[in-house]
């Protein structure tokens, strides 16, 4: 799934950032750029954080 449309960031890339320690949307934005522009994907990012960094698997 493409999570951040502004920067074309997928759920896998976000999951990777979370698995490397990102635990807030700001940290995810800093790590991979997701949510760094318009910020309208941050609710999805929070869901991924809550899901324990899993893109779906």
């Amino acid at each position, binding site marked *: *799934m*493409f*999570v951040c*449309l*502004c*920067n*074309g960031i*997928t*759920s*896998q890339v*976000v*999951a990777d950032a979370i698995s490397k320690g990102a635990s807030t949307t700001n940290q995810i934005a800093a790590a991979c750029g997701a949510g760094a522009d*318009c910020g*309208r*994907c*941050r*609710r*999805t990012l929070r*869901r*991924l954080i809550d*899901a324990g960094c*899993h*893109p*779906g*698997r």
Partner: protein
Amino acid sequence: MRSADPQTHSMVIASDYRVPNPDRVWPLLQRRKSALAGIGAHHVLVYTSTHDYGRVLVTIGVRSREPIVELLRSRVFFDWFDAVGVEDIPAVFAGEIVERFNSSTPSQPTAPGVVIAAIASVDDVSILAAEIRGAISRFQTAGVRETRVFKAFDDRHEVLILQEIDDEDAARRWIEHPDVVARWMTGAGVGAYPPLFVGKLVGMMQIDG
């Protein structure tokens, strides 16, 4: 290259999200026909949830694989989300069709069926397709008319599966007791994936380039 059949060999962008008023979605999309043509869209299908008011599923068939990331960045999508009142941008599936399995019966009623959509992760998409092929008679018995399997561009395990089922009762039975090969049903709603979508087609728009 364009396909003669809108449902076959088509690349698809799909998003499942909530809007304040689902009745506005279809007319607003129709008004954006030229903008959609501009990004290479050739078909747009809109489904509304029958159990979860405000939830819609929109699939857009596009002509080319290469510009997907650029396409998702285009103002067309953001303008569209703004127009329908979506504040939080949903995750978007982008992929291509793997196979379309027809399991309708010759005496099939003509009334539109119920659509169940799932985005999930599977171990192996090719094996899944083979398993579905071997289960067509069981799908038919369960009231499944058609199953379309799409694989994601960005994740070789990720699939979008769209099924058309005879009616609400058959759909409920399928959700509660899916066939053994339909393991994707339990993968929906995990992580970035939306929960199972159950709804009806409200419109299909063909866009000539």
